[in-house]
């Protein structure tokens, strides 16, 4: 199956995969791990040259992807793992979250809280939020049985002091 992409009208090009080895975090696919993921993502994004607001946005997006894996890919079952790879590069930061659970077949593009509230929905915001906070969001299947959220955030300036959405 090809990549499930939340195809915005014009999806930005992906960041090139950098040569330097990524920072890797392997941890239980459990909500208890969300705070650790949030703090690590924020710290790594800041270290990659993003300002405080951008680092916060990246941390929230990574947390949403992690939550998606815990709740949807693994349906809340205990005993599973997530592997997160942070790839800083001159162009920005790519974060990949790999799992061995269920992959989404279709990604929601937008989420309208007014409509969702009218339907008494409590969910449906996660993927839309990731898309709003990152430059590019995809769900891939890099090898059989492996699902991957791939999140790119570009620097505003090519020499990268801060992060912009486009």
């Amino acid at each position, binding site marked *: 199956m090809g990549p499930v992409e939340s195809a915005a009208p014009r999806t930005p090009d992906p960041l090139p995969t950098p040569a330097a080895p990524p920072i890797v975090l392997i941890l239980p696919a459990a909500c208890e791990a969300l705070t650790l993921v949030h703090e690590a993502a924020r710290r790594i994004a800041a270290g990659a040259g993003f300002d405080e607001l951008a680092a*916060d946005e990246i941390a929230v997006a990574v947390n949403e992807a992690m939550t998606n894996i815990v709740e949807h890919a693994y349906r809340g079952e205990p005993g599973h793992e997530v592997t997160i790879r942070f790839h800083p590069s001159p162009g920005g930061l790519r974060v990949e979250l790999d799992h061995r659970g269920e992959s989404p077949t279709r990604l929601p593009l937008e989420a309208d809280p007014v409509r969702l509230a009218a339907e008494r929905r409590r969910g449906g915001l996660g993927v839309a939020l990731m898309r709003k906070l990152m430059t590019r969001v995809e769900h891939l299947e890099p090898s059989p049985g492996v699902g991957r959220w791939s999140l790119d955030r570009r620097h505003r300036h090519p020499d990268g002091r801060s992060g912009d959405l486009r």
Partner: protein
Amino acid sequence: MPELEITIRSVGSVAVVEPRGFVNAHTVSGFERALSERVDAGNVRIVISGAHLSYVASAGFGAIMGLIEDVRGRGGDIRICALSGPVAHIFRVLGFDRLCRTFEREEDAVESFRGS
């Protein structure tokens, strides 16, 4: 330090719910319970103060989203005050300003229920 602590104060007929810490998929059940217990007890005038929130993930916004129309159906509302920093930012990014009324000061949020 617990990840989420929730204080509830009654200001006249209004319940002010003040979460401290962060609301994510791990802590959201406590946040949701605090809200729905208010509603079940008939307190449908609710102000959520963001003064001591460090961040709110989509799960936290989802809890408000899932409850607000029932609260409105019972003549109440969920209004928000004292949002700042990353929480205010995500609130806007998600378009929640079209769903919930917000106020800078808690007093104004409480006052807004007067005569309603």
